[in-house]
């Protein structure tokens, strides 16, 4: 990625950040929530390109969210940036540890083992009555470099934080996907043994991918915790992971921005579905997913970047 593109991207983000007065507050918090799952999905794209789909990414998402909640509760840390960094580190550490095991697995077994790990965290959280069990706990509102925005200002501050995180995620994920390690993903997906014959350890590569994806999921969880101001064990439940995979398919693995747009579209569709058909919104979501898979197999991202599909081959 050239300097020109980075600058251009930064400009666009600054523009979005400046859009704030034009947007209603509810839309700002809706976009913030969407960006938190967008962060998780951008990590899933890294894994999906290597043919791996975890059904337990909520493990890292919840780790990030609970790190923020507990750092506030126990360590009295209130600075948003410090909290996000802590969450990223915690999630990456969990992944570095879980990866020792997970990185050896492929296909459905990878999916199931990651699901099992996330469900064990869910069970632990449900069992911990001190943390409110399934009711969860409130997250204290964070401070930003010593400033204490409250009310609408807080919503906007978290929105800006989400833009910064998304910008950084976009830069780093794009850079990683373009690197040799990132480019290996397609080769691993197609034929792992050939990659090994090149003298590259596939297990180590996947371990790295897992850790990066987990760090992104941790950032997403932290953002969600700061934005919602509440964390609960549902964040580690398998349906949460299912939701992330859902958005990944909706967005497609073609490009990183697609992850964020996909997450936003998903959140908007969900919100409309809930308002239009309160008793049947899942049906609408299911139908959207089905139609996407059947008619836009490379995801919505492919519609936006149609030109580039031919050369890249987002799926096999």
């Amino acid at each position, binding site marked *: 990625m050239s300097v020109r593109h980075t600058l251009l991207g930064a400009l666009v983000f600054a523009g979005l950040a400046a859009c704030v007065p034009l947007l209603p507050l509810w839309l700002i918090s809706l976009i913030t929530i969407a960006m938190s799952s967008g962060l998780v999905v951008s990590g899933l794209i890294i894994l*999906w390109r290597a043919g791996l*789909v975890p059904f337990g990414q909520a493990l890292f998402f919840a780790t990030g969210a609970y790190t923020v909640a507990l750092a506030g509760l126990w360590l009295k840390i209130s600075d948003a940036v410090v909290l996000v960094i802590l969450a990223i580190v915690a999630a990456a550490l969990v992944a570095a540890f879980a990866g020792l*095991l997970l990185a*050896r*697995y492929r*296909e*459905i*077994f990878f*999916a*199931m*083992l990651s*699901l*099992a*790990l996330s*469900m*064990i965290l869910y*069970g*632990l959280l*449900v*069992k911990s009555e001190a943390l409110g069990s399934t009711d969860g706990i409130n997250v204290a509102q964070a401070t930003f470099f010593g400033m204490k925005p409250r009310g609408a200002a807080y919503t906007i501050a978290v929105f800006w934080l989400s833009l910064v995180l998304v910008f950084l995620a976009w830069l780093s994920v794009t850079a990683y996907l373009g690197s040799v390690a990132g480019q290996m993903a397609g080769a691993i997906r197609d*034929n792992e*043994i*050939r990659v090994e014959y090149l003298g590259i350890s596939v297990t180590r590569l996947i371990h790295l991918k897992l850790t990066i994806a987990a760090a992104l999921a941790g950032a997403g969880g932290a953002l969600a915790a700061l934005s919602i101001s509440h964390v609960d064990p549902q964040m580690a439940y*398998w*349906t949460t992971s*299912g939701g992330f*995979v*859902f958005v990944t*398919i909706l967005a497609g693995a073609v490009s990183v921005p697609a992850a964020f747009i996909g997450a936003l579209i998903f959140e908007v569709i969900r919100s409309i579905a809930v308002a239009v058909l309160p*008793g*049947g*919104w*899942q*049906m609408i*979501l*299911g*139908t959207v*997913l*089905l139609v996407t*898979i*059947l008619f836009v*197999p490379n995801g919505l991202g492919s519609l936006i970047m149609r030109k580039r599909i031919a050369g890249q081959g987002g*799926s*096999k």
Partner: protein
Amino acid sequence: MITAIAIVTDGLVYAAWLFVVAIGLSLIFGVMKILNVAHGAFYAFGAYISATAIGLYFDRGWPAAGGYVAIGASAIATGLIMGYVLERVFLRRVYGKDEVVVVLVTYALFLILEDVLILIWGAEGKAAYQPYSEAGSIDIGGLAVSLYDIGLVIFAALLAIAAIFAIKKTTFGRLLTAVIYDRETASAFGVDVSRVYTLTFLLGAVLGALGGAITAPKISVSPGLGVEVIVLAFAVVAIGGMGSIEGALLGALIVGLFRACAVHLAPNLELFAIYAVMALVLVFRPHGLFSPALARKI
């Protein structure tokens, strides 16, 4: 002593239920390499249809024994119709696509069918307790055990024997085994893979619906009951090895007994039992206990 008896009977009853629920999922995965999330919907529809059938049947005041036939017949009909429609209309279009894409198709179908359930039957639970209550209980070493549950264990055992026999000894079973091991080679040898797929999916759907149907008399059939089942069935299949009947049987037994031990001896661990077992087994046997040898394709 009575605790030991309780652990064994409770474990067997739970294992029997798990096995019936998981076997259809395992079969579909083994043959078609589809992780069928809609299995939860088969289960839920089976339960609802069976509850409705039992209600209609017992309202007429007919003899109780026939109620069990009603359960079986309603499940088979549900499975056949749903399986056929889902396979023909939706899955056909995505064969050969990425595994995860196919999983997501079944996930989407599951989401839709969950709400369809509420549209048809409403949010209120449905009760169909007669077959369970009519069966009564017997005393085993001082512990009252439901005869319906014992019936379930016998049914699951017969199902296991029938399934293993069918796979090993019948022509269709051998075709299935060929497809499980290598679809392309089987196809090259003249196996009509497309037909095998359809039949397998129908069979899996019927088994899923049957799982729901036999559970219906024990529980209040209410919305959301399919969600819990999916993960449980996945776990059993992952422990046993995808596509292996013996594996599903052993997986169900391990999980069933482990859970019964947890409830009686360490109730706090019950929540973790199934996932802990799954993680443990996968650590030592990454592809489950009974997994077909994988060929290295270079």
